[in-house]
């Protein structure tokens, strides 16, 4: 604890390069697996060789079929998985910091229900029961953001404490979910479409869709990570963080707005994918400690890799059929979580 000059200095809780490198490596490996695995297996070595060839570093090009499978069919799906997973994990971590509640997830303030209602309106009213892939995401995105805004207004514009916000979120979500159920019952055709949308999927990934949500996700992730050190201050509660000089209401409003923007964009792009926003920041917290300076950055890469791997399972477990990715994140997430808890217990012993 003493530097060479003899003045004591405090140890650092800041981000460690080796942690970031490990998290990036995890996401890169997951992406490689995502490009390689599927109904037709393309060896990772062939993909690496192809990338090297494209960059003019030797190697050789893939055959045309593999090229189409890897770069036209799988790449947008992998990229969307990275973006949605990373954004949901950062948004979940940010929500946990704002609410000082480890059970907070990005859907806490009504985004899921609002996006669900928005998507149902798009499918039932606009799409005549089927839904247009260019319209549904927009409605889901707007619905999610309107729901959070409504929650925020009901809770007195964020000036009341986090508990009021959570309660308002529960009320708004219940109301919107009821509206969504009511609407989907009017059309038997719509039920199936709405149901599949709600379960979440990366199957509809396109480059233009990715470009549509990318700006929102980028803003969301950037703002959340920039506010990470303020979330560390907020950990001592509202009264004390105010006494330390933190403008509590402003910080809370900005972080909730940013996290909600990212979560709404993620939901618009891939439907309701649960568990990523809770399990990834938790796992990171258990591995590297409680500072949000670490949690948010590492969750970005951890969530990205996690969702791509979940998607690999979703499309490869059953031959010729895809599992809903939300089911996979839950099935994969829970044992992973138990494993991390177990490792931590062993380490503490």
């Amino acid at each position, binding site marked *: *604890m003493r530097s060479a000059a003899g*003045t*004591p*200095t*405090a*140890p650092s*809780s*800041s981000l460690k390069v080796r942690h970031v490198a490990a998290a990036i490596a995890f996401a890169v490996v997951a992406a490689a697996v995502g490009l390689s695995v599927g109904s037709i297996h393309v060896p990772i070595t062939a993909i690496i060789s192809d990338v090297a060839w494209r960059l003019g570093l030797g190697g050789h090009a893939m055959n045309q079929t593999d090229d189409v499978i890897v770069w036209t069919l799988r790449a947008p799906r992998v990229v969307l998985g990275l973006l949605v997973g990373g954004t949901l994990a950062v948004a979940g971590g940010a929500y946990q910091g704002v609410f000082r509640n480890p059970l907070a997830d990005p859907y806490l303030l009504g985004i899921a229900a609002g996006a669900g209602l928005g998507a149902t309106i798009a499918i039932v009213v606009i799409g005549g029961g089927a839904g247009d892939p260019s319209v549904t995401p927009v409605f889901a995105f707007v619905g999610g953001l309107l729901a959070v805004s409504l929650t925020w207004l009901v809770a007195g514009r964020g000036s009341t404490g986090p508990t009021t916000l959570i309660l308002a979120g529960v009320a708004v979500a219940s109301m919107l979910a009821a509206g969504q159920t009511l609407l989907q019952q009017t059309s038997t055709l719509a039920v199936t479409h709405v149901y599949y949308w709600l379960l979440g999927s990366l199957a509809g990934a396109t480059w233009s869709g990715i470009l549509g949500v990318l700006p929102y996700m980028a803003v969301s992730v950037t703002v959340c990570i*920039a*506010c990470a*050190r*303020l979330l*560390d*201050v907020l*950990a*001592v*509660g509202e*009264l*004390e963080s*105010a*006494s*330390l*000089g*933190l*403008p*509590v209401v402003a*910080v809370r409003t900005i972080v909730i707005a940013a996290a909600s923007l990212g979560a709404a964009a993620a939901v618009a792009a891939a439907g309701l994918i649960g568990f990523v926003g809770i399990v990834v920041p938790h796992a990171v*917290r258990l591995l590297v*400690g*409680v*500072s949000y300076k670490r949690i948010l950055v590492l969750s970005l890469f951890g969530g990205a890799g996690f969702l791509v791997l979940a998607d690999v399972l979703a499309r490869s477990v059953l031959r010729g059929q895809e599992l809903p990715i939300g089911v996979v994140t839950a099935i994969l997430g829970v044992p992973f979580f138990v494993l991390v808890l177990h490792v931590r217990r062993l380490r503490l012993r």
Partner: protein
Amino acid sequence: MSAALEASGVTVRVGARSLLDDVSVSVAPGEWVTVIGPNGAGKTTLVHAVAGLRRVDRGHVSLSGRDLGTLSDRARAGLVAFVPQTPVVPEGMSVADYVLLGRVSHRSLLRAETPHDRSVVGEVLTRLDLVALAARAVQTLSGGERQRAVIARALVQEAPLLVLDEPTTGLDLRHQLEVLEVVAEERRSRRIAVLATLHDLTLAGRFADRLCLLDGGRTVASGSVADVLTEDLLRAHYGVDVTVLDVGGTPVVVPTPRIVT
């Protein structure tokens, strides 16, 4: 030199009820003023109000000559540091990181801490004998150690006024003294102004230059320790018979276990 704290006519209401009614208190640099009074007298409301943590309905508060109402959160944190009665202990946070939170007002909010911030934290950890505990999680500390960490966090704010709400709650006799002695030493060596609330009247008399006795949200007595710690005043406002003994020049308050009707 302006007073570290100058509060006059402070009134705080909740609905029709006054929690504080026209209370005035001032603390000069290097001075220690302790607020005493029975439960519900308004002690905590007063320290929250002067620390800018609670809205004042009427009256005026200035910190080192600057009007509290015009200060940003950050500017205020540079003029008054606050030690709460029951600090929130964030799980898993090290003592060093916890104390470092006190530096957040010294830079723009999104900036990382500087080497200077770390060296201020290092100095305060040394002064408060916390260096050996710096890497420990705050929640694993004993009550006395934890309270020293909370005070350390307030001290690294380097504010001219330190406000403490019942800093000895839940501590044994030795640790009560230890915590108050830490504050006394900081005030002596750095001329920090101290405003504290305390339940223990003997300790209150021992450590303060002046006392302020609150009852029902009003100031009922204020002045030197000898003026305020009198058997009549304490009987009238605490509702018990007490004997005030003089032990080596300091008053010792001994309650008589019989309720006055």
